């Protein structure tokens, strides 16, 4: 049984048919990447998986349970966390408050403190800035915060929407290394990326999304060698 199963999901913005029957699965322990061009529907797919958007048709099944019946804010306590597009840190709150909000649904106060310290160990830059307002940090630091904040909810599935966006190459490496490390510790990851090159390197499997439809799926190393993928997403002629 896959941990996550997106089953023939249709989603609309008004009359715009953004997802035209998207199906995908993520097995426990995998890194799966979803690649595609601008406007393909990657963010929309993640929004339906987190409940921020209700699909008009189709199902999102997480851990054998149709999560569509829960209100969006209840999904995180089911075990789904997301690092949203553009990071979505709370700019006027301190780093530490952002992390505390990541643990909003948890009641184990003592462990929350420990987990915050672990976040600082993972990214010492955050530890040095714990009282700083998140909005005053650099893009890379905000991305580190967004990742650790998502982990604070103790998810079983981590969704990430273009974590490399707008970052200098060095920082992209830092973030991708962190994703690999989190995965090795047992986290299941669904990674949306335009940086298909990097994403396919760390992923087990990949899906290619085009105008609201999955057009291709395979093992990551196979996709890397696929001529259409190379041409469209890896910039290889």
């Amino acid at each position, binding site marked *: 049984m896959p941990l996550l199963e997106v089953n023939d999901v249709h989603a609309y913005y008004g009359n715009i048919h953004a997802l035209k029957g998207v199906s995908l699965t993520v097995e426990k322990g995998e890194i799966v990447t979803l690649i595609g061009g601008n406007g393909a529907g990657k963010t929309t797919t993640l929004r339906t998986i*987190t*409940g*921020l958007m209700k699909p008009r048709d189709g199902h999102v099944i997480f851990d054998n349970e149709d999560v569509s019946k829960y*209100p*969006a*804010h*209840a999904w*995180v*306590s089911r075990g789904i*966390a*997301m690092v*949203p597009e553009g990071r*979505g*840190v*709370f*700019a*006027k*709150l301190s780093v530490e*408050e952002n992390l*505390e*909000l*990541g643990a*909003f*649904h948890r009641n184990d106060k003592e462990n929350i403190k420990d987990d915050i310290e672990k976040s600082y160990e993972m990214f010492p830059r955050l530890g040095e800035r714990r009282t700083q*307002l998140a*909005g*005053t*940090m*650099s*893009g890379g630091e*905000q991305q580190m915060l967004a990742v650790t*904040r*998502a982990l604070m*909810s103790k998810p079983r599935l981590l969704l990430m929407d273009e974590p490399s966006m*707008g970052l200098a190459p060095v920082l992209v490496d830092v973030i991708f290394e962190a994703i690999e490390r989190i995965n090795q510790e047992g986290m299941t990851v669904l990674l949306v990326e335009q940086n298909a090159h990097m994403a396919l390197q760390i992923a087990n499997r990949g899906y290619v999304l085009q105008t609201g439809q999955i057009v291709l799926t395979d093992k990551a190393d196979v996709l890397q060698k696929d001529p259409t993928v190379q041409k469209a997403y890896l910039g290889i002629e």
Partner: protein
Amino acid sequence: MRRFNYIDLVLWLFRIGIIGVVLWGMTGKFILGIGNDYTISDWLDFFVSGLSQGSLYALIALGYTMVYGVLFMINFAHGEFFMAGAMTSTVLVALPLENAGYVERFPWLSLLAIFLSAVLTSVLVAVLTERIAYRPLRNAPRLVPLITAIGASFFWQYYFRGLFGSSLLPFPEFPMFDGKIAFWGLDFQKADIAVILTSLVVMFGLQQFVQRTKTGRAIRAVAENKDAATLMGIDVNRTITITFIVGASMAGVAGVLYSIVFRQLNFVMGFIPGIKAFTAAVLGGIGSIPGAALGGLFLGIIEAIGPPLFLEGLGVAGSHQLKDVIAFTMLVLVLIFRPQGIIGERLAEKKA
């Protein structure tokens, strides 16, 4: 260099004009000696009554600013939450208690009952308004809830007029707020001191709530980014309701404090304080909690000190009746020159 256009010119003339009026008025007052001759203790009286009035504005303004913070909407019915609490607690609790002689025998207990009933009523009215009138419009264009709020405001005014009539209601006299009290050889109105102290305590409590509690943090998160807040597991609608409850509680407290000071109320009593508090919230930068508190205090003080300080000197008769003019001039000036408020926050939100 920026092109010097004629709107700038008009704005500058406007500024110079205002400064001119103020200076001219103060010259008239202090050098030419126009108007009454006030002693230091008179000025102190103006200041303290301004501070007391300003505390009321601040308490109401906090509700405006918090709701604006989470919904980006000016809740024009907020003044009615204040009125509803004051009227209901007076008619259903204060006056019956007075008639039964309880106000005289147990003034503090009676007062407690009045505060509780006022807060409960304000909260009830606020929650109903939010549920019925605002929530269905959550995704409508911004103008729609604004117009609805004005409609809700009229609805509550005439609803309470229907309930309690349109004549002025007297608020009972409480011995502990009657007369003056001396500090450091100076006399202060007890009622003013009570209002100032109560407001300070309430505002301190609010500050602690917003900064230190989990719910307070949720309110700030929702104010910033509703989707991200939802991803954290925060129930956005519930948080918005809590924000209304907190704002309405403060309006309810302000309603009773207003009743203690002015001792006369009716169904339109929420209108002017509501607009003044809105002015205060804008002065402090709408959306900012400390801004609303400071804006309220500032507005109360300038209203009290402005007329004797620079209107009397212009030879304006009955200048103290012009405090509303001062308040609304301030509103217009701030909207023209500093729409982000006098102490409006300008956090550099980095995009990269």
